[in-house]
């Protein structure tokens, strides 16, 4: 943290009082935070790295309008000070944590749904709208925004766009990018642009370079997203669930391939390994999962007869290799079957008392046929380092979430967890996967960018330089600086 433990002073040493003065003139004073105790809580996200080594901002601003964001960015540019945008701070990458101090823009108070244009299948929202809040407002009207991150109840749409995040339903519905029709972005000099057409309400457009796609997933390194035109689609009438248990992880992996070959397209295909199943059963007394090395969960959705047909056919495909198959489409049974998958994140802590789950090596994606091999390799890494790693994930697109459970009071174990994460990342690259499927690069995966992208990283750096020549937009992230360090 800062060199000085003083918290009675209004600003930590090094903050530019001229900048703070101008910020107070631009944004109402109670939304410009400079007390040390206010800044500390912006010095971390859910990443393992920032829990160990926080990054303190010099000032936090909570803007409420695009004009305020533009004015703050322009003032920061004038003073040559970094700007780090932040939503709910639920990232697991260090992305919303300032690597070099400066201004944090807390956008979570720009949280209005500006327009609900359902006839044209779209809504216009501010970046701070919480994902679950948006869908709670849309679903009674028969529509939804399909990406479904585990952090739905608190994460913001702005964060989802900046990270191009997804969730379980990505198998059928894809990631956030597929639903972003246009953006309003404040560039690094304070200019405001609209991508996807200034006044467009079109659902398709190939007019010009696809700047919308460029900003989606840019993690705040190119500009600040202040308004989002989002495509929404009708909610499926019914949902069903199929659960199948397998004697081997390989059999589970092969079943996923069988499913696609059988021309089925479930909304989600999830896998839990044996450790994850044990965690779920410890967490929910009375929950009984069938014996097996791995359990698959399928979600199917659509019109009622289609759901019945698809679930029955899925169950038949599973029975070829599974030792236990169940399916349901009435909501109570669906929830009962889905319960183990729903609680697995919460349950991870139960596998080891006096320990914490850390987010490290937590988001690799591998080719589907490599999923069984990757799960076995992660268990081998776990054995070698001497702490449990619980693995579950979206096998339908090869995305695995590994959760090491360590005691942070044990320095050697902390260090081994870093090694384990590094090994998991390198495993993914070795078997033609990627280090991150939906969480992002941020600080924690910046070092892999060169190896993963080669000369393409040079093009990314050129784009960054063109849009942000002074390098003030979320510096230190995504390996965009020289030496691969941002």
């Amino acid at each position, binding site marked *: *943290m*800062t060199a000085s*433990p*003083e*918290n*009675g002073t209004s600003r*930590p040493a*090094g*903050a530019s009082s001229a900048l703070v003065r101008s910020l107070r003139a631009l944004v109402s004073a109670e939304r410009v935070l400079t007390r040390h*105790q*206010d800044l*500390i*809580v912006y010095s*971390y*996200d*859910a990443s393992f*790295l920032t*829990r*160990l*080594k*926080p*990054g*303190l901002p*010099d000032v936090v601003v909570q803007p409420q309008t695009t004009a305020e964001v533009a004015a703050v960015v322009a003032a920061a540019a004038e003073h040559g*000070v970094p700007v780090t945008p932040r939503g*709910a*701070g*639920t990232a697991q990458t*260090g992305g919303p944590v*300032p*690597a070099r*101090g400066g201004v944090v823009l807390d956008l979570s108070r720009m949280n209005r749904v500006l327009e609900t244009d359902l006839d044209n299948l779209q809504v216009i929202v501010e970046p701070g709208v*919480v994902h*679950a809040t948006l869908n709670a407002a849309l679903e009674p009207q028969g529509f939804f925004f399909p990406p479904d991150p585990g952090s739905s*109840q*608190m*994460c913001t749409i702005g964060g989802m766009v900046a990270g191009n995040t997804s969730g379980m339903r990505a198998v059928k519905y894809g990631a956030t990018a597929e639903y972003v029709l246009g953006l309003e972005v404040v560039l690094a000099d304070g200019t405001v642009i609209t991508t996807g057409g200034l006044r467009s309400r079109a659902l398709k457009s190939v007019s010009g370079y696809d700047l919308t796609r460029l900003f989606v997933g840019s993690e705040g390194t190119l500009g600040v997203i202040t308004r989002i035109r989002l495509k929404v689609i009708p909610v499926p009438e019914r949902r069903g669930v199929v659960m199948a248990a397998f004697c081997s992880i390989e059999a589970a992996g092969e079943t996923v391939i069988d499913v696609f070959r059988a021309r089925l397209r479930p909304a989600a295909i999830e896998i839990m390994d044996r450790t994850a199943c044990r965690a779920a059963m410890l967490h929910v007394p009375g929950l009984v999962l069938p014996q097996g090395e791995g359990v698959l969960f399928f979600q199917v959705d659509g019109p009622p007869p289609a759901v019945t047909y698809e679930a029955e056919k899925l169950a038949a495909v599973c029975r070829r290799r599974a030792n236990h198959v169940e399916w349901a489409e009435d909501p109570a049974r669906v929830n009962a079957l889905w319960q183990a998958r729903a609680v697995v994140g*919460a349950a991870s*802590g139960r596998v080891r008392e006096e*320990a*914490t*789950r*850390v*987010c490290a090596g937590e988001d690799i994606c591998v080719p589907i046929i490599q999923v069984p091999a990757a799960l076995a390799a992660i268990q081998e890494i776990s054995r070698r380092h001497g702490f449990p790693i619980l693995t579950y994930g979206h096998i339908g697109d090869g995305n695995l979430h590994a959760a090491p459970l360590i005691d*942070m*009071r*044990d*320095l050697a174990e*902390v*260090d081994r967890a*870093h*090694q384990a994460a*590094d*090994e998991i990342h*390198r495993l993914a690259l070795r078997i033609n996967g990627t280090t991150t499927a939906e969480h992002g690069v941020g*600080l*924690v995966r910046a*070092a892999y960018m060169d190896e993963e992208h080669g000369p393409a990283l040079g093009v990314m750096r050129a784009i960054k330089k063109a849009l942000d020549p002074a390098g003030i937009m979320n510096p*230190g992230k995504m390996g965009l600086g020289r030496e691969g*360090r941002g």
Partner: protein
Amino acid sequence: MSTASAGGAGQGPSGGQGCGQYGIVANVFERVSAVAGEDVRSLLGELQKCMRCGQCRASCPVFAESGRETDVARGKLGLLLEELGGDLRPDRELYARLTRCVNCGRCRLECPSGADTGYMLLEGRCLLQRRIGLPPVKAAVVRGLFGRPAVLRAAAAALGLVQALLFRPSPVDPRHVRSIWRLPVFGQRMLLPRMRKRRPATAPALAAGRRQYVAPADAPVVIYPGCLVDLGYPELLTAAQEVFARLGRRVVVPEGLVCCGAPAAYAGDADTARRLAAENLKALAGHLDSPGSRLAFLCPSCAVAFRHDYPAYLFGRMSGGTEALAAAGLTMDAVSDVAAKSVDATALAWELGIGEHLAGPPISASVTYHDPCHLRRLLGVHSQPREALRALAGGGFREAPRPDSCCGFGGTFALEHVAASAQMLDRRAGELASTGAQLVATACPGCMAWLANGLDRAGGGQRTVHLIELIARGLGGGV
């Protein structure tokens, strides 16, 4: 600008050659636990369970109004960790931030990692309070008043005199009085329950000996009234006595009960809280011996103190708990036995079948209901009050929007953080008023008093009422 703070975070992993390349030599968990005593070590063990996912942003009612990250558990625990690490000077500002909390338990119940935020916040405030003391006003309230029953009674009598001079009866509800001046920060005239003379030990109807016990006489319903009922709403105690008598239960209100200790515990003064807890447990000795006996509460916050906080925190995992238990001559078995018998009075009445005794809707008014946080969340009571109100309200039961939201009272939270509390109150009172119901029922004297203020500010002429009163009224002329 400062770069010293974040150089490490900017580095990240740079290669796969093993240890030491991350620029991280120590972390606060390891650094502090290496030198700390067992108490701080175990607090750190719990603190590390918070993986900073931010789920508490979705559950915290204080954050819902303020939008301040320091209000959610993740933020408070982050500050606490900094303080334990020696990077943050313990001061009044830190204390004020750690107590911007209504202690509703939502963050604990909804934490995906199962982190016990209640324990950590109470213990954290306690450690801080031992270093810097309580702020004077808070010390006067939790120690000087609630910590000393005789002083509390004298103060209530004095407040009664002040009320006679500077307050006027509320036009909508004569048991509340309204200040003749507007309070600063609060911005309005304040309503308080009218302070009453000491309650009669037994309701008149019971003294007449007209009751036949249905349950054995050694399975009594013991009632813990709580300070606010005792001093401001004694008629709630009478109502409860009548309700349980109608159910054929022997009703006991032991002498010598004092404040439950929750205000002190929430403020970080575990010593005062434990002293009060021990006094209560001694006053109850002998009354709850039979398996069928129950301890019924009119205030869910008091119930949570007895049911959960005594065994789990004060005499449980908080530092000094075991020693305090021994010093008070108590055993964990005794504390746990009282905890297991502690229940909300309205839920108990419902469970014992009071529904069958209701003579038909006793009131013509329409009624809405406010869930006290502690009742709904920590005691799990939310469907029974609604069933009761559907049976009781002649004018119909009307559900308010966001049935799970907080009134903003939170005990001394309303005193210490008036502006934040008033903001929460106005939102909640607006929602309740929007139902158009004539009565706002709840099952907590704290919510009753605070919502009376909110409804007064909203100006819709509604008044608050405790569910136990409506149930007692629903018994018809039998009592």
